């Protein structure tokens, strides 16, 4: 059987058997043919003149046998129903012919492919259009598939002849994630296929081989990016929010950018920043304490000196949470203490409320809201403030006074205590001081031969300091150590309550967020009493439904009274008996809701490598010409071969009968 042909009816063996049996019978019949009788005559001269010249009758018999054999073999072959094989050439045959019939298009879906070219189209749009045009002109024999290269490769359209599927995949091409693993995407291609990689990765040239072609139909573009943005509350003094924004000019031209820090409903501030080509600058901004919420850093206007436009918008925004910080507040209860009043007034960003001891009862209820309450020669009745500094306390207070001492010699300072950290207090002169009685948990701060002059106390309910002498009765106010001691006091008292936890976490877009039924792995969760997102399965089914909400999109929709839009801001994801790697679609402020918990997260790009648009890979810009459309020299197989064989057999039958009758 010639190559490319198969028997669709009887298998080849049976065809041969039938043909063999038939042929054997034909030959047997031939051998058993009747021979004409031989008659002896005296002379054949007369017979020669009467009888016509005759050919050798054996020739006729042999011819008939040949026709009979032909008919038998033809019928046997017809029973086998031979048809041409439609299978595609092997890859080796394809190559030998110079035609590659399997083609894979690998499309880079990294962030930089969202860069806008001069004509307003993104790079990935350009690739999609280019490939749809090429698809239309592709030889119909060519199988083509599309693989999307993002952090993990995805089969967007399997390799095959389904042009519609490929066209759909090309129409839906979009950027996915941040980086692209081109090697893994190329590895997904079937062996032997021609792979065309559409990418703007500068190092993609290393992938090129004789079967892998790099194509980069793009141009270098200018870009300024926010490469880092974060907020933090100061745990020290003053109590402020500090924002750090890092900007990078990834172009060859100087740029001027307008940087703005915004919340959902207000603009916190804006600044104009100049960036030299290739420069990266860090800007720090300070704010008064804000309510906990999300903040967005936005590059509102970017101007390049050479007239270029910023090509990539995705890196012009960044998100962070405001870390709550408690403003510094001090309550001074005194009849008048100019040293204390003055030094407290010098504390930056602190609000100092001053009341007389007689007015204490009205303020007692709110005393715990202050970072520290200075009680100057006064001890309140009843409940003491949680954080109190007793200056020259009278007897009967929480710090027991043993006796008064004149001109005590100060012999020891507790430099290990936070109150005296970094201070040098030699030769302090004190006119008169109370000697305090130290309790079992009290820490001696200042001592004399008579006993402790200052004590610190820390209990479950708070912290307090007993200072045995009035500041004015010493030379402490004249020393640099005095304001520093007050600062240290505030820091110690505020320790642990100055700042709160940011309302959400931080996450890089390219990394998966591991989400399970119990929350996000490695992240603190906020317990909620909200109903779990409705489950489509049974209550006892493994796993849970997680709601993922784009807070920015939701806020915009709510601002426009678009309830449906607000609902569309939330998508549902099913998680199983353990964590699931969730890849968020784009940067922003997000909320995840699970059964009894929620988690807010600010998602930023993380990896800044995709912001460099100025360099492109070494590539073959020309399109790969599809193989020429061959003129079909074969008509479609409308008449199967068995028909022709049967037709031939019929003619042979007639012809052979005609010979038989001659």
């Amino acid at each position, binding site marked *: 059987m010639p190559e490319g042909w198969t028997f669709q009816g009887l298998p080849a063996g049976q065809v041969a058997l039938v043909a063999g049996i038939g042929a054997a019978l034909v030959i047997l019949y031939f051998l058993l043919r009747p021979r004409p009788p031989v008659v002896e005559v005296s002379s054949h001269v007369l017979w020669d003149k009467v009888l016509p010249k005759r050919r050798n009758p054996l020739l006729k018999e042999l011819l008939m046998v040949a026709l009979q054999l032909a008919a038998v073999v033809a019928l046997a072959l017809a029973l086998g129903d031979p048809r041409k094989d439609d299978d595609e050439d092997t890859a080796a045959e394809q190559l030998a012919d110079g035609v590659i019939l399997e083609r894979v298009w690998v499309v880079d879906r990294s962030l930089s492919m969202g860069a806008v070219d001069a004509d307003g189209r993104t790079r990935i749009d350009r690739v999609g259009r280019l490939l749809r045009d090429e698809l239309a002109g592709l030889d119909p024999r060519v199988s083509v598939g599309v693989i999307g290269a993002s952090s993990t490769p995805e089969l967007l359209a*399997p390799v095959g002849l389904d042009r519609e599927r490929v066209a759909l995949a090309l129409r839906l091409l979009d950027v996915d994630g941040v980086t692209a693993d081109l090697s893994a995407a190329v590895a997904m291609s079937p062996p032997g296929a021609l792979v065309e990689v559409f990418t703007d990765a500068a190092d993609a040239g290393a992938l090129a081989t004789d079967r892998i072609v790099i194509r980069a139909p793009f141009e270098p573009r200018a870009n300024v990016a926010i490469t880092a943005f974060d907020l933090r509350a100061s745990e020290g003094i003053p109590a402020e929010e500090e924002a750090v924004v890092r900007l990078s000019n990834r172009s060859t031209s100087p740029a001027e950018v307008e940087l703005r820090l915004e919340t959902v409903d207000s603009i916190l501030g804006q600044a104009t920043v100049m960036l030299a080509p290739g420069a990266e600058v860090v800007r720090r901004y300070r704010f008064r304490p804000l309510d906990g919420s999300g903040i967005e850093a936005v590059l509102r206007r970017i101007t390049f000196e050479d007239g270029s436009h910023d090509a990539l918008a995705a890196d012009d925004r960044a998100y962070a949470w405001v870390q709550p910080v408690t403003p510094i507040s001090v309550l001074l209860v005194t009849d008048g203490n100019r040293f204390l009043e003055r030094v407290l007034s010098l504390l930056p960003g602190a609000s100092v409320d001053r009341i007389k001891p007689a007015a204490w009862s009205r303020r007692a209820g709110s005393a715990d809201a202050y970072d520290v309450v200075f009680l100057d020669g006064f001890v309140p009745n009843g409940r003491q403030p949680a954080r109190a500094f007793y200056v020259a306390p009278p007897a009967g207070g929480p710090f027991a006074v043993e006796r008064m001492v004149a001109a005590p010699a100060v012999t020891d300072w507790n430099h290990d205590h936070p109150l005296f950290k970094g201070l040098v207090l030699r030769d302090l002169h004190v006119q008169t001081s109370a000697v305090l009685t130290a309790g079992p948990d009290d820490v001696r701060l200042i001592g004399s031969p008579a006993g402790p002059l200052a004590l610190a106390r820390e209990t479950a309910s708070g912290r307090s300091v007993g200072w045995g002498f009035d500041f004015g009765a010493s030379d402490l106010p004249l020393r640099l150590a005095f304001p520093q001691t007050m600062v240290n006091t505030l820091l110690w008292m505020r320790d642990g309550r100055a700042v709160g936890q940011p309302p959400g976490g931080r996450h890089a877009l390219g990394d998966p967020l591991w989400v399970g039924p119990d929350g996000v792995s490695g992240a603190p969760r906020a317990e909620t009493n909200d109903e779990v997102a409705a489950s489509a399965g049974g209550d006892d089914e493994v796993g849970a439904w997680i709601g993922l909400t784009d807070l920015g999109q939701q806020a915009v929709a709510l601002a426009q009274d678009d309830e449906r839009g607000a609902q569309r801001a939330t998508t549902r994801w099913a998680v199983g008996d353990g964590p699931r790697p969730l890849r968020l679609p784009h940067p922003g402020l997000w909320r995840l809701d699970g059964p009894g918990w929620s988690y807010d997260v600010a998602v930023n790009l993380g990896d800044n490598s995709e912001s460099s648009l100025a360099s492109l890979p070494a590539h073959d810009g020309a399109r790969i010409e599809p193989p020429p459309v061959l003129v079909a020299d074969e008509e479609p197989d409308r008449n199967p071969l068995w028909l022709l064989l049967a037709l031939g057999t019929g003619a042979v039958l007639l012809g052979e009968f005609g010979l038989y009758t001659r």
Partner: protein
Amino acid sequence: MIDLSSWQLAAPSALWALLLLPLLALLRERSPAGHPAWRSFGAMLLRGVAFAVLVLALAQPFVETTVPDRSAVFVVDASTSLDPTRTEAAATWLQQAMGEAADVPVRAVLAGEVTELIGLEALAGEAAPTLRGGDLASAVRTAPRAGASAGTDLRSALEVGLANLPEARHRELVLLSDGAATRGRVDEALRVASARDIPVHVVPLGPPALRTGVVRLVPLQDQLHGDEVTVEAHLDSNAPVTGELTLLANGRSVATASVGFGPGPHTETLTFTPDRGGVHDLRVELAVAGDARPDDDVGLARLRVKPRPTALVVGPSEQARALRAAVAGYVPELRVEARTELPAPPYDDHSMVVVLDPDLKALDGKRTRGLVDYVGGGGRLLMTGGQQGLVTDETQTEVLAEILPVKFPKTKKKQRAPLSVVYCLDTSDSMANGAKFELAAAALAQSLYLLPEGGRVGILGFSDLPHWVHPLSDFMGSDPVIGALSQVRVRGGTSIYHALQQAYDALKADDALVKHVVLLSDGQSTTTFARHGDVVTAMLRRRITVSTIAVSADSDRSEMERIAEAGGGRAYYAKRFDQLPQLFLDEMMQVTRTNKIDKEFDVHPVVGSRFLERLPEDPGYPALKGYVRGEQRPGTELALATADGHPVLVAGRYKRGQVVLFTSDVGGAWSQEWQDWEQHGALWEGVVEALLRPEPPDRLALRTRVEGRTATIEYDAMDPLMNPRGDLVVEAIVDPTDGDAYAVPLAPTGPGRYAATVQLPEAGAALIRTAAVGTTIGRDGPPAPGGELLASVAATPPEEVRAATFNPRALRRIAEQTRGLYAPTPAEVFGSDAPERIVREARHAMLLWAALALLLLDLGWRRLRIPGR
């Protein structure tokens, strides 16, 4: 029985060939062959029937039958998450399904390492590729599992399945999976299926499999060799399990523990004692019966163990002995290796390097660079002064000079060049009060001892006019100068510029390499710079520098400063005359460029210094007889000082290390009284302790996050007032198991926050050492916080291993989105109603058989012989 009534003809026009049948009769009639009639008639009949049958075959007869117009493709999840139990469940379901499928065209896709069609090769030769149940189930059972790194990509599997569905009006896809997808967005494929009206039936392969593993391994870093090290193994399981946990250090088992935990996280603490200092590779293995995913049962980490402290002491043997004796009581024992010369680098094997009174001029570039690198990498350097004077002039010592916490003035480069100095002393009336002139003269005389050999000195007194007290001549000792000064009478006004003119005239002819004028006055000059200042500029042009000392509040400071500025010298101001000796000394030091001060002085401690912690409140410091004078650099930590604040014991940081400088000597001529001082040992033990003690990472934090092979390092720093520090230069040294250590800068990413990402090795862990190595402001600003933070990181197992084992909700959603069935039986899938299609079955084959048989019969008839005929 063949029901011919149901036969139809596809090409009835072929029947026209039957019109050729009479031809056979005609051929027989006109046949001259003389065959017997019966034979020829029979042959004609048989031939005719054979021909007719053949013509009928040419008409392509067929019968029409109806079959279900449906097709199906099975997509079988073959990822790592499928254990043998689930695989068997899938194979059993498939076998039953193939039985139900009967004649329905079916294909199968295996979603393993590579998504591929299965089972077609075995069926070549059949009319259409179909699968047999046994073949399919066998293929599923024996298919190799995908590697864990391949993940579970249901989207690709669905795409391949959809692309390979045989054509039919009713097509369906059956997905057999546990739903634990880790790659791809299956929604895209479901949209295609919905658009093409292809339901996806889902056969969930559950229940949840046992998932247990090691989340991370956290050893306590920087313990001392010989001490026990605690290692925390963080474990996790989705079910109660018991097992065995084994800790290996450098491939050797060092600890085991039986564990029982779960469901949920659990921390197990193991301890072991390292057998040496340095970096160790740790590995913990969790063995739990029934764990189908052992890939994550291993945790890796790197541990740094500090070796027992050793000190390399380099210096004169008597000084080394003195220091060794001083630190003899240090605990833990300090092993001292004493050398008289500094060996070649590296010095990393030593906890600290002590260099006693080094001759810095003789140090080669390799050794100075070695010391700098040693300190930069975290080493501790203690250097003392002495007779060598800590001369940092040479080019090769400049790098070392930069890391010292004291800045020393440059001495003369090659040899002391000849110096000529002229002192212009105010001898006006005002100098008579309170013995001012005498004080000035005495101060001047004291400073003369700094004059080098071969130097020349002149003293010019001036009031209204200048006069030589001691003409410019070779310096022969202080006595002649003192004698000359004692003869001076103070009277008259103050005319500075005439004196300067005279000094200029004397010095311009002098051939000394260094020519200098020191001008002292306590009053207002009658001549001003505005009118006479050109003499100073002329002096500078001839390289004659002028320094000025303005004494008392009555002096014209601004005028004096103007002169000094124009004269390229220094301007001093002394409120009182008793400050003059120091100023003269300072000036002479600047001019003669010598650092050593051979003078007895008292030491003043800085209260609260960590270097003096071992000393009592009042240790009674003996006097020192000399020191090397320099200026304390900003940001360094002073512990002992002279009365005027010059550093005696001072510490500073350089990158990851520390340098302590004692500007006097140990065991030398300057510190003789200290040898017998009872607190001597306590002082040096305290210095060593403070130097070797790890700097507490106050207000510093290091966080690491690992995803795959990418580790993110985040460093947090705040200042003592708890404000974020944004001025730091932060660096991490990554030390992987296999490979060389390398440095990575951390960029600022937030207030007081710095971060970087690194790629980890595929096998093994990496030790990250992070520290602030400088500031963006430089040495003029607050120093960088000390302290190195360590963390060990290792690549995480593939997502497939860490992810859930069963996600039925996701599977149910797939079915819902495509209107497919969830957890159907095979009968439910193939028993559902489906449209039918008409199929044509050809019947020509039997006609061909008949024609062949008739042909052979015909040929046999021709040979038939009737006996007797």
